[in-house]
C-alpha cells in the first residue's frame, strides 16, 4: 500500500503549481485551468484518505461531489468569460476593470 504521505506531497506540489498558474497567467482561461489544478489536488487528497473508509466511502463520495462542483463552476465561469470577451474584446483579467458600461 502506498504511503499516505506520498499522496499528500504530490497534491501539495500540484496545489502550488495551480496557485502559481492562477497568480501569473494573464488569460482568464488559463487561470481557470489553474483553479482546476488546485481542485484536483484537493480531490487527490480526498481519494487517498478515502482508501481507509470501506463501509461509508466518505472520501470517494466527496471526491465525486467535488468533481461535479468543478464541472458546474467551469460551465458558469466559461459563460462569464465569453460575455466579458463580447463586451471588452479581451480576456485579460487585469484589463477588465470597469463596472459600468
Amino acid at each position, binding site marked *: 500500500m502506498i504511503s499516505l504521505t506520498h499522496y499528500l506531497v504530490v497534491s501539495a506540489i500540484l496545489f502550488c*503549481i495551480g496557485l502559481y498558474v492562477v497568480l501569473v497567467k494573464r488569460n482568464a482561461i488559463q487561470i481557470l485551468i489553474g483553479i482546476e489544478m488546485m481542485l484536483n489536488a484537493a480531490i487527490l487528497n480526498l481519494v487517498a484518505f478515502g482508501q481507509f473508509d470501506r463501509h461509508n466511502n466518505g472520501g470517494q463520495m466527496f471526491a*465525486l461531489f467535488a468533481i461535479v462542483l468543478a464541472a458546474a463552476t467551469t460551465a458558469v465561469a466559461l459563460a462569464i468569460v465569453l460575455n466579458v470577451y463580447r463586451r471588452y474584446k479581451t480576456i485579460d483579467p487585469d484589463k477588465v476593470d470597469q463596472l459600468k458600461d
Partner: protein
Amino acid sequence: MSAANILFYIMSFIALASASYVAVSKNLVRSVFVFFVTLFALAGLYVLAMADFIAVTQIVVYVGGILVLILFAFMLSGRETLDVLQSPQRSIWKIKNLPALLIVALLFIVLFNVILKTDADHLGWVSDSIKTKNYISNSGDMTANIGVNLMTRYLLPFEIISILLMMALVGAAHLSRKERAE
C-alpha cells in the same frame, strides 16, 4: 519496492511535469492539451488509491466535459486570446513573476512541514481502520458499494448537488446566450 510504488512514482512524475509545463508554457492551445495529460495521470493516481470509479468519473467529466468546454470557449473568443500569449518577453524568470514564485515557494514550505508533522500514516482513525480491516483492498466490488451509499447515506447531498448542477447549467446557458438586437 513494489510495482504499485513504481507506478505511483511514474504517474505522479507525469502529472507534476505536465502541470509545470502548463505553468510555464507560452502557448494557450498547447497548455490546454497538456492539461489533458495531467488529468489522465491524476486518474491513474486515483486508480492506485483504489478509487477506480472516481478515476472513470474524472476522465468522463474532466476530459469529456470540462476540457471540451475550455476548448470551445477559447475558439469562440477569437484569436486575440492567443495574441496575448505570443508576446515574446514572457519567461518564468521575469521580475514580474517573482512575487508569485515567492508566495508559492513559501506556501509549499508551510504545506510540506505540515505534512511531515501530521504523519498521516499513523493517524488515529487510519490505524483504527487498518486494525478493523476497514480499508479498501483490491477485491473489486467497490462500485456497488458506492452506488448503495449514494442512494442511502448520501442521498441528501446527492439531490442537493443535482439541483445545484441544474441551476448552474441553466445559469450558464442564460449568461452565454446572444443578446437580442433592439
